[in-house]
């Protein structure tokens, strides 16, 4: 993805110069290793700050919700699927968004990498296949495949499913990926073990809602956790309330989640809440043959009845 930055600048500059769009949404280089910041450009001059590398894990579809202007957005495979979902759910109009597609080879996992080296990471550089981590005392070279975010390692839609223009040729899609091995393992646990597992999983939560707010699906004007009339749940740190938040949020994402990984990436305390959303993703696939965000022409699984829907639960 090394050449993408220049191409993105070129496309963004042209779109703004020709007044095709009012605004381009992309990333600028971050102030920390392995961090980039979502940003916008409204003039051809401003596109110089645009940037692309393996640290653009935030889902930019999140920045399209209810926009009024005509906007171009730089979109990875997962972002593009969330744009499809946004269009289906009337959060933006298709003719209002110019999708600059990025064939993606995956984003790297900041938390995992931090745990793999000793000492503070001072700088990170990359080639197509490798990631070089520099600490005060050492340089370590990793294969990019070793340090991908889990959702990227499991990704089977790296190329945008919808676009107006691509920054490069499509990359090869991954096959032979076992997307649900960890979910199936949880399913084999007994009740006690499962309870303990989810207790451990969610106990560090500080209810900052970074997961919810990083998620393009979570656009409700008032989230159920913030409702006061009626108040659905407590506001403190009672584990029951924390679990209620995570489980209900996951259910609200059923049949919509693209496993972009923005939630897990955003979490300041390292909770893998994707275990919840992926269970529902797996169920949607097994029961309805449904994958979210692949087509503008198909209604989502939770939105439509079909004569052959499974009905084993009806006794």
């Amino acid at each position, binding site marked *: 993805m090394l050449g993408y930055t220049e191409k993105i600048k070129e496309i963004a500059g042209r779109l703004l110069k020709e007044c095709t769009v009012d605004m381009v949404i992309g990333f600028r280089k971050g102030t920390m290793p392995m961090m980039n910041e*979502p940003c916008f450009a409204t003039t051809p001059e401003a596109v110089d700050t645009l940037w692309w590398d393996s640290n653009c894990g*935030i889902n930019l579809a999140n920045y399209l919700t209810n926009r009024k202007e005509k906007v171009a957005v730089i979109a990875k495979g997962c972002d593009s699927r969330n744009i499809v979902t946004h269009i289906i759910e009337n959060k933006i109009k298709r003719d209002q968004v110019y999708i600059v597609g990025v064939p993606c080879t995956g984003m790297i996992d900041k938390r995992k990498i931090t745990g793999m080296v000793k000492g503070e990471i001072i700088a990170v550089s990359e080639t197509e296949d490798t990631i070089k981590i520099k600490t005060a005392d050492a340089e370590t070279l990793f294969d990019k495949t070793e340090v991908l975010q889990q959702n990227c390692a499991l990704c089977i839609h790296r190329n945008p499913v919808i676009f107006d223009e691509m920054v490069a040729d499509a990359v090869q899609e991954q096959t032979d990926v076992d997307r649900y091995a960890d979910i199936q393992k949880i399913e084999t646990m007994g009740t006690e073990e499962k309870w303990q597992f989810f207790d451990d999983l969610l106990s560090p939560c500080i209810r*900052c809602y*970074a997961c919810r*707010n990083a998620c393009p699906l979570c656009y409700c004007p008032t989230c159920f956790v913030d409702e006061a009339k009626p108040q659905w749940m407590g*506001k403190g740190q009672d584990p029951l309330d924390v679990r209620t938040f995570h489980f209900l949020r996951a259910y609200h994402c059923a049949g919509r989640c693209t496993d972009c990984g923005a939630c897990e*990436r955003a979490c300041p305390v*390292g909770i893998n809440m994707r275990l919840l959303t992926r269970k529902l993703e797996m169920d949607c696939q097994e029961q309805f043959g449904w994958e979210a965000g692949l087509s503008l022409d198909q209604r989502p699984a939770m939105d439509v009845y079909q004569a052959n829907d499974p009905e084993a639960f009806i006794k």
Partner: protein
Amino acid sequence: MTLVKIDKKTWAEGLTAAADAYRLYGPVKEKDYHQFKALEKGEMPDFDMVNTRLSPKALLFPQSEEMLEFSLDESRDDHHIMKAVATDDTPRAVVGIRPCDAKSTLLVKLNFDTPDVKDPYWLNAYHATTFIGMACDTPLSTCFCTTAGCGPYHEEGLDMLVMYQGDAYLAKLLTDKGKAFAAAAGWSETADDPAVFDAGRKAAEGRIVSTVKTDNLADTDLLELHGAPFWDDIAFSCINCGTCTFSCPTCWCFDIQDEVHGKSGVRMKNWDSCMFPIFTVHTTGHNPRDTKTQRVRQRFMHKLKYFVDKYEAGIMCVGCGRCVRQCPVNIDIRRLCEQMNSFKPADACAAQG
């Protein structure tokens, strides 16, 4: 001021002994990162870290704290009467707090201990606590304490400051509370080499690579800064989560909630965040800070301008770098501070044409 020398063995024995008189808290590694926790008897604080993920502010200002309790059972004489929840204000000590976090306690105190209003929950916890600081010899690249009103060997807010001296510790007893803790721990081998602390401080300060400039903030016109042209650009990426405010040692905002289970209830205070849209929603439904830009501006104006003007005690930030490292979208207070500090109102006029 007294210096005492503590070898590793005496350190461990001393903490174990002190645990009879104090409830001890310290940094402990849980899962992937360090947190301040109550130490079991004999458990040692783990200093193999720079900063804990969350600041130790929760020791005085828990994320969720029950203040009052009540019963709705009308067969009871005391139904609907609010009563204070019992708190444990017996002596305790935080062992291994960083100087930046200790300084932040004094900034938070400005809010909870005012001439007119005193928060008994925070103050009782504060007075019960002895702060034993661990000097910071290996700051991170995101630490900018030396230009945020403190530093790696800063003493404000501490009762004792401990530094490594080879295989042993050297401790500076700064207050009576610090002396009392040293006595309880049996740390009595005095040392007479204050130059060691100075040398340690200078070396550690030399390792701070990140700085902010704050010299113009007080003199810049408040309304001009409020109307500066950069707020939309800064706020764009913000997702309005509470990561920055919850991880910040100086953020003190809370919300009060009543929660009832069956016929018994509690009135609790919970951390709140100016980043949340509902933080400012009025009962009418009107929200005076309805947009992301307004909320982001509020956070930074509070830390770097309103607080500076109101208290004349510097910025409401100690440079710990937690928000810089943890913000999911890389909003960097150092960058903001630079923009605010270098802002010239004339620029705004020019920008507006």
